């Protein structure tokens, strides 16, 4: 069940005014479909992540979230539909699109045998950053996640929560304006989960980073988050919480989610914290 407090409004303390910005959205997906052989994984999905928006992509395991992420990050192309990052098409202008994108994948992609710093420098090099500029950005991001003292430790020595934080820092080293996180809190304890969630929401407000946060945990759709419900490869709803509640005629997101994904799967969603 979804505790009421989890969807309570958080006062907007914006230093970034998203309405003042009229450029193309951080992420625009239109008519995206994808199949693995005969298995259709995504069907005509369209969605938007605005600048400075914290957008939660809510779906059960197997809803197509990871495939959507793979297509947005150009691991492979879709046959149908288009993806634009700040107006740059991922297929025809991948450089411009990937430059502004930071990604935290579902499975850890850190090198366990390298130190925290070495992992971050590697990422900076992959974005063509000079050593000096990289040093400064890495210092800033490590300070922000509170792991400055661990920077010379091998990643293997870090806890799961710390590794996730390093991955978040890594995704931010090149100063992206769009941040994608695929189930970033899986396997983390309550404190680490909360840290990550607060930290990312702070990034939206302070730096105007557009965030797409994929999860199957309903209570991560907190406050003023925009919500997208994905089920069996189809988008079932998109909008702020109050709109989704009004549309479904329900009182909390858990009930709305169950309704949106159909009664067969009702009760399968995890509304509680692990």
């Amino acid at each position: 069940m979804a505790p009421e407090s989890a969807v309570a409004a958080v006062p907007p303390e914006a230093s970034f005014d998203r309405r003042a910005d009229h450029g193309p959205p951080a992420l625009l997906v239109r008519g995206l479909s994808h199949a693995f052989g005969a298995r259709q994984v995504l069907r005509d999905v369209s969605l938007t992540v605005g600048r400075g928006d914290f957008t939660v992509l809510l779906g059960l395991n197997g809803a197509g979230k990871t495939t959507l992420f793979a297509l947005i990050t150009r691991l492979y192309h879709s046959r149908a539909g288009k993806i634009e990052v700040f107006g740059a098409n991922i297929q025809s202008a991948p450089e411009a699109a990937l430059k502004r994108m930071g990604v935290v994948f579902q499975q850890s992609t850190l090198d366990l045998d390298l130190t925290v710093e070495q992992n971050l420098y590697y990422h900076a090099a992959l974005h063509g950053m000079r050593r000096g500029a990289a040093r400064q950005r890495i210092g800033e991001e490590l300070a922000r996640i509170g792991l400055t003292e661990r920077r010379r430790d091998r990643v293997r020595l870090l806890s799961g929560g710390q590794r996730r934080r390093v991955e978040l820092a890594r995704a931010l080293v090149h100063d992206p304006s769009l941040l994608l996180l695929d189930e970033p809190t899986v396997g983390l304890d309550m404190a680490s989960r909360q840290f990550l969630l607060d930290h990312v929401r702070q990034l939206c407000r302070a730096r105007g980073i557009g965030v797409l946060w994929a999860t199957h945990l309903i209570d991560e759709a907190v406050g003023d988050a925009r919500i997208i419900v994905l089920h069996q490869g189809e988008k079932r709803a998109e909008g702020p919480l109050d709109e989704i509640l009004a549309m479904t005629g329900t009182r909390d997101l858990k009930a709305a989610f169950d309704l949106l994904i159909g009664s067969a799967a009702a009760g399968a969603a995890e509304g509680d914290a692990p």
Partner: protein
Amino acid sequence: MTAAQYSLCLAGIVRREALRWLNQRGRFVSALVRPLVWLAIFAAGFHFVLGVSIIPPYETYIPYEVYIAPGLLAMIQLFNGMQSSLSMVYDREMGSMKTLMISPFPRWFLLISKLLAGVAVSIVQAYIFLAIAWFWEIAPPPSGYFLVLPALILSGLMLGALGLVLSSFIRQLENFAGVMNFVIFPMFFTSSALYPLWRVEEASPVIYWISEINPFTHATELIRFALYDRFNALSAAVVVAYLVVFVGLAVWGYDPGRGLMARRAGAE
């Protein structure tokens, strides 16, 4: 992206590969011990079994250890090529491959950088092996140590590219044991690494012809000739041809539009 940024990216990829190699002490040691075991045990056992006549590039009768040393250099590169490409894919479901692929640089550039990084590491190992092999009286002319460098670069690139091709196409090679059984050992045994091909031809014409088209044979011969101040034009041409084909296939295999990565993902 500017030329300076391209070189920063390449340097970063090479640095990471070197750090990984230094940090994984097990990999470091086994990469060195493996060829030394062949040299110490296998060569000792076969020392009197296989008589080697005078064949180019050698100008005199040579002990068996001297004969197999170039093949073991190529073996170091084969292992390295397979390890750096395949481990990248199988380690935690393509994790490090994803890190590489979301870089804004063109994918062909990232793949070739990865390849160069693997070759840099394998060349360091090859020279350490040559230094130790000197104590087995494998002492090529001093100039050979320099001339073998371009041969090692070329063969290392070719064998590394083969690893990339396999990593993009083959799903069944679930672990390194599979690669050992179906790629490394067959390539090693059907080549001129352990015995001269004229001896193979006497025994089995079929295996002889397989050995003749085996890229590993030509990598070995290129290294063997270079080590003794000679240039084997045929082997060089064959190695370059395979290199072009393998790099082409790898870039094709990792092209996001071809969907090979997608097919892998769909199969999981």
